[in-house]
């Protein structure tokens, strides 16, 4: 029983990480038709931004409010990079899919190389609060606090995103744009502003994943974003392009499946099962769990 609770909660922690990366990726693809391979870079910027701020930014540090400030800095850095990427590199290439893929793949490679050149290729210990290194007893299982932090953060982000999509004007534009971008334009709305906004939201969520992923894993390394991005793409496809709630369901399914199969089967078999799940969903329901609708 203890093992099942522990596996379920660590699986949900992993799911939370996937969701934070996948939600923005899904909205960007659903609205703007951009397959953003550079999304992992935003995660890297968030992780390294938090790591750097904790050691160098006045007032920031590994504990208490100082840590909150460090995470806020990392998230702000990730958001800024995402907005700049959209404005400078993606905007001139809307409707040019091949060029978009080339640019975002190139950017993700260049981003990792830049992080490596600046701070080295080796993983660095992540400055994290003392309490996050401990465990909490839940139903007899000793669950790492870093994982619980990720679950809470992802739940808050999910609630905030759904409220944003449901109650704000831009949320309405994004939901409509995911369905039919051309018709949004034909109602007199400059949909490009919504593109920038979804990049900003996606960048912020991914950067938060980077910061909290650093807390969870205890280290930060240049390639972290890229490896998480593969599973985030799988989550997006399973959940349905453009659906935040679909991404949440898919992330939970992928995280739990991976964790349980890796434990009860052989290590690595969980990853294979995730790919098999992707294949099954593509065969039975190609539009994903939620279809192409930005649910609020």
């Amino acid at each position, binding site marked *: 029983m203890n093992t099942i609770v522990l596996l379920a909660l660590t699986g949900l922690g992993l799911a939370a990480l996937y969701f934070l990366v996948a939600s923005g990726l899904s909205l960007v693809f659903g609205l703007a038709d951009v397959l953003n391979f550079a999304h992992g870079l935003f995660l890297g910027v968030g992780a390294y931004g938090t790591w750097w701020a904790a050691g160098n930014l006045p007032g920031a540090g590994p504990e208490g409010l100082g840590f909150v400030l460090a995470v806020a800095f990392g998230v702000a850095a990730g958001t800024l990079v995402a907005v700049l990427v959209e404005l400078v590199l993606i905007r001139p290439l809307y409707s040019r899919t091949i060029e978009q893929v080339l640019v975002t793949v190139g950017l993700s490679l260049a981003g990792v190389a830049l992080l490596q050149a600046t701070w080295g290729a080796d993983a660095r210990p992540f400055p994290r609060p003392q309490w996050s290194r401990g465990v909490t007893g839940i139903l007899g299982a000793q669950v790492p606090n870093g994982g619980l932090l990720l679950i809470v953060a992802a739940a808050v982000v999910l609630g905030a995103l759904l409220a944003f999509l449901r109650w704000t004007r831009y949320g*309405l534009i994004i*939901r*409509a744009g995911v369905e*039919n971008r051309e*018709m949004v334009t*034909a109602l*007199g709305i*400059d949909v490009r502003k919504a593109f920038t906004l979804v990049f900003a939201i996606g960048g912020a969520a991914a950067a938060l994943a980077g910061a909290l992923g650093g807390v969870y894993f205890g280290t930060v390394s240049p390639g972290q974003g890229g490896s998480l991005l593969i599973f985030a793409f799988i989550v997006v496809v399973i959940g349905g392009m453009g659906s935040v709630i679909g991404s949440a369901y898919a992330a939970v399914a992928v995280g739990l499946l991976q964790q349980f199969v890796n434990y009860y089967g052989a290590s690595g078999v969980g990853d294979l099962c995730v790919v098999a799940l992707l294949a099954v969903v593509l065969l039975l329901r190609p539009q994903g769990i939620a279809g192409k609708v930005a*649910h609020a």
Partner: protein
Amino acid sequence: MTEPILSVEDLSVRIAGLHILQGVSFTVAPTGVTVLLGRNGVGKTTSLRAVLGLTPRGGEARGTVRMGGRDLLDRPTHRLVRDGLGYVPEDRDVFAGLTVAENLRLAERRGTTPAYDRVFALFPELDRRGRQRAGSLSGGQQQMLAIGRVLLNDNRLLLVDEPTKGLAPKVVTEVAEVLERVAESVPVLLVEQNLAVVRRLATDAVVLSAGRVAWAGGAGELLGSAELTRSLLGVGSPEVRA
């Protein structure tokens, strides 16, 4: 002679290597309904969409489209719409996942007061069904929503593409009645296949054939001549009432 509200000169549209429009020229009068007619695939919808800057990816539109002395072709669609070009697309294109009220709210323009009174006076059902998802409306109700969305704002010209397509005869009559009332206050460029509706609404007609203008003149003159309707549209003079 009255200045036209819209003037299209030598408009050519090429999509995927095909010349859909080949130097089309026509004008839209500042009052009444100008109808674009022609057999399937002659470029009616393409003309409407080119005016609004909605030529698809990889396509190219050339020529001159003027409204109020301003060339429209190089301007982005959302600006044209804000400047008073209202568009009701061929397949309604309501946002199926949004409610009726959200579909209408999306059409509100910043800095103007949305005319909900006008819309609900014409379509009281939209008021009653505000919380219903647009995707669950009938075809006729979706058409009402598509027209209502445009009428929420004051427009200088309405572009309406096949508003009666696929609708039941009773609903066709209702849509025609609404458009007749709308056309009393704003000029309309209409694409329509139903000649009974055309007879009821149109003041002027432009007939396209193979991407070119085959005939232009008064709608009454066209529809009053069995020979013209047969040679240009391939049908006899309309008898059905709308």
